[in-house]
């Protein structure tokens, strides 16, 4: 850039402000208090597998870079182990923010970067709505029968590991083939229809 000419910039918080307030309310914690000390990222057991590190996630939220977050692998890789929230000196509930972002991503039309993990959560809830409890055999079967998962598993060859695990567990008597169905399924279906809003 030529000297003397000032770059035209949008003030940093203009775009982010609304998004920060929205997420702060949803996560029930402060996000603006983050001063980028990176303690969350250093405590995180999987930060080296993330494309956007936890402290960057908080910064992106402050800047309102929602699209980048929705398309990241980070929001799916997060284990909810709560190390970040526990050790944040400013009480930013980082793990809770990740969960809110994951909620948003699931509702948005953005293609999740971790297809199988996203499909797993969806399948888990479907199984839960079907039986009231979750049976591991049925869960894994329904997951692997999803077209996007099946394609991914064949492409990466990871179906072999699943098969191997199934055989091992079967031999050890750890698979329960018949699912248990709760008696009061009406109640569980009713719960799944309630759309909660936090106060």
């Amino acid at each position, binding site marked *: 850039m030529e000297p003397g000419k000032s770059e035209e910039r949008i003030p940093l918080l203009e775009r982010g402000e609304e998004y920060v307030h929205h997420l702060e309310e949803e996560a029930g914690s402060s996000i603006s208090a983050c001063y980028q000390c990176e303690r969350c990222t250093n405590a995180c057991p999987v930060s080296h*597998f993330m494309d956007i590190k936890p402290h960057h996630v908080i910064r992106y939220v402050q800047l309102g870079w929602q699209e980048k977050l929705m398309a990241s692998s980070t929001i799916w890789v997060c284990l*909810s182990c709560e190390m970040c929230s526990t050790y944040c000196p400013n009480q930013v509930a980082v793990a809770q923010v990740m969960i809110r972002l994951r*909620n948003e991503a699931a509702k948005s039309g953005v293609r999740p970067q971790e297809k199988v993990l996203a499909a797993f959560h969806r399948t888990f809830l479907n199984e*839960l709505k079907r039986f009231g*409890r979750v*049976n*591991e055999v049925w869960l894994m079967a329904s997951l692997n029968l999803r077209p996007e998962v099946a394609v991914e598993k064949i492409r990466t060859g990871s179906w072999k590991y699943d098969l191997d695990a199934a055989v*091992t567990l079967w031999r050890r008597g750890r698979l329960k083939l018949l699912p248990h169905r709760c008696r009061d399924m009406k109640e569980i279906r009713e719960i799944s229809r*309630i759309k909660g809003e936090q106060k």
Partner: protein
Amino acid sequence: MKISYYPGCSLEGMAVDYARSIQDVFRQMDCELMEIEDWSCCGASASHSLDEAMSVLLPARNLAAAERMGLDIVAPCPNCFNRLRHSQETIGKVVEKPPWKVNGSVKIHEMTRFLTQEFMLEKIRGLIRNPLEGLKVVCYYGCQMVRPPWITGFTDYENPQTLDILAREAGAEVLDWSYKTTCCGASIGIGRRDILVSLVGRLIDKAQQAGADAIVVSCPLCQSNLDMMQKAAGRSPMPVFYFTELLRLAFEAGSWSKEWFRAHVVDPVDMLRKKEVFR
């Protein structure tokens, strides 16, 4: 004494060994576990990943059932415990009312903490006939049992002691290590096996460096991750026990527990025989 019991889905499938050993230990201790009537899944990580309302209301359904029974809850699975506690804390803050009456008044006990109350420990001490002398273990707590502390109520979340106390009561030598609460990867292996293998590999390494013969856990997911993935991580086999299995073995030596040990991927029987605590 009576207490309501919320086993959780895993204990019906993958963690049958945990379920059976819990039943056995509590029977010996003369403490009756009353299964919560028609309990349903707590929603685990899926419900709070996708649907916040469900993650509060699903556990609340079980809380309501326990309230009707008028008994405090004990939950063996740390994730279920965490979700139940989370629900208890947030139930009043959700605008939509649950379709039944619930006020979140029952006390929710995490199983290891329930058993480390002084009067329970005394009962345990009276039952130990086969102390597991010479068995060196490290205790692994994982995440959900201790974090976040404002939900779990653990004040020593950096260096929790409940499993250590129980393993020590069982006669085992409990070693110190720094990885008590480092995450094992939870359900990440379903989509990212590479991450799971790396996390489990590190835990097994650290346990071996501490000089342990075995790892003691209380979480079904930690157990299956550590037990199943150590081979994929290329580590030499290290048995992973539920603490109740060790307690029961310390109560009485015998081959009755073979059925649980059969469920382990890494067979612990040879190691236990070598230590002369298992016949």
